[in-house]
């Protein structure tokens, strides 16, 4: 066992938006080692995104009850006060989302958005240094002509570039954990491959642990070492990706794998 940086135990999430409470996540456990990439796979309604949002502390919009523990850096993110939670958000734990267009603020310049975590968490860094780091980060995620992009608005970029901007903004504080919620689903296959490569490279260069959420098992196979399979709020299976592909233990996992069209070129 390596150095465990995140330990989620017995996570329960229940929504109270309607008269009847609705359980969306049940008995969710996750141990994340420093620098590892874990995949969470499942279909819509499986609770994979909800678990991720809970870890990132972003479930505040709904009327809900949460139970369990999310231990990070000796703190329980589920029960700690908002101020402590905020001090981790964007600095130690970052997140990127499915729709890079709607996830960026349409009326703010790219540079301003990339720098945001620095501005919030590291007030000691001055404006010039902030800009230098932002541009450096934007170059690191493969945005060509970063100086120019710095002053552009989201609508002027392509989908792939926007997702790169999102990654730059998430990585600028050099977080320990990056949560990626279906970051490639809205993108074309070739762009998708580029973004997956970029995430792999970030993981290698900066040592950031990644929780990668996707509905696409074959994509998870390309990127992750470990995978958690979810269905209707529950963890169905959990283990090494290759093992699960070779010997799925549960019926649902088998069904998921069978749904991927097999290609036999020989």
């Amino acid at each position: 066992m390596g150095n465990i940086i995140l330990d989620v135990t017995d996570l329960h999430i229940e929504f109270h938006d309607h008269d009847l409470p609705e359980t969306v996540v049940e008995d969710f456990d996750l141990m994340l080692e420093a620098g590892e990439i874990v995949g969470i796979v499942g279909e819509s309604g499986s609770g994979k995104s909800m678990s991720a949002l809970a870890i990132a502390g972003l479930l505040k919009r709904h009327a809900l009850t949460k139970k369990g523990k999310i231990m990070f850096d000796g703190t329980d993110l589920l029960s700690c006060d908002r101020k402590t939670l905020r001090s981790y958000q964007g600095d130690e734990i970052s997140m990127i989302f499915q729709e890079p267009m709607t996830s960026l603020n349409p009326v703010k310049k790219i540079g301003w958005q990339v720098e945001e975590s620095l501005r919030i968490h590291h007030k000691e860094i001055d404006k010039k240094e902030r800009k230098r780091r932002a541009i450096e980060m934007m170059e690191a995620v493969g945005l060509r002509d970063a100086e120019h992009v710095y002053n552009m608005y989201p609508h002027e970029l392509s989908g792939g570039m926007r997702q790169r901007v999102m990654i730059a903004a998430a990585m600028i504080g050099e977080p320990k954990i990056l949560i990626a919620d279906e970051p490639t689903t809205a993108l074309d296959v070739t762009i998708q491959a580029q973004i997956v490569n970029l995430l792999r490279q970030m993981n290698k260069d900066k040592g950031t642990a990644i929780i990668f959420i996707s509905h696409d098992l074959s994509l998870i196979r390309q990127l992750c070492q470990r995978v958690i399979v979810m269905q209707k709020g529950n963890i169905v299976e959990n283990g090494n990706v290759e093992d699960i592909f070779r010997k799925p233990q549960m019926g649902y996992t088998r069904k998921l794998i069978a749904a991927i069209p097999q290609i036999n070129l020989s």
Partner: protein
Amino acid sequence: MRYILKKVLSMVLTLFVVSLCVFLAFSLIPGDPVTRMFGTEATPELIAQYREKMGLNDPILVRYFRWFVAFLQGDMGISYDYKIPVTGMLAEKIPITFTLAIMSFAIMVIISIPLGIYTAKYENGIIDHVISVINQIIMAIPPFFSGILLTFVFGVILRVFQPGGFVSYTVDFEKFLKYLILPAFAIALPKAAMATKLLRGSVIDEAGKDYTRTAYSRGNTTNGVLYRHVLKNAMIPVVTFMGMALADMVAGSIVIEQVFGIPGISRILLSSINNRDYPVVEAIIMGIAIIVLVINLLVDIIYRIINPRIEVES
């Protein structure tokens, strides 16, 4: 810059179309202006002489261009009833109406922006509910009736306002402004209610969008998300509304001037409509049209500043 030029061009074009419509509408109404001017005194010779003098025998487009060019030079024709230039009649009235509209606008902005943000932030709280009910009621009160009510409360019960005690700006500017406060409120209240409701809805709408989740994920506080991210987006529809509201206020003051006995353009407009004194009606409508178009231009420019997406939306 190209954007502004384009907008100015389209404004000029609109003004042209509007002026043509106004001129044609009033020229095609049955009734001869000269007969109208002299009434029973009109003799055929007099009519013929004046028709020639006023150029009424020329083709209608020629008359239109002559009228339009003269209008741009500040010559708005001669009133049928008073036989004096319309420009002079309106010169002292327009500042009164305009001041009233500007004051109303300021009141609307000062009330609605903080209230809109507050009610959105504490959505479904007690204060939010109370304010939405009050808003709903205020929007249902015709401005002239709220004018009457304000006169009643401040003039009859509290006795801090003297109805009919208008002082012209040429006499005492401070007293002039003081007198206009109540009428300005009467005009501003329903618009402020609408703007509050619109801003509240807009902030709530924007707050539900994905980018606010991103903002929270960076460690922003609720206020940080609201003021640094949501507000600018939420103001986009509100700016458009406020522009239209300002135009409405210029026109709305016509009614309120009647309630408070303010000698703005209202009285002249109404009497000239009733007496079919068309040069005056035309001049006032064109005057308001120009004000409206200039306001629209300003709104477009502000809109462009807060919304960088405008070019792609085209």
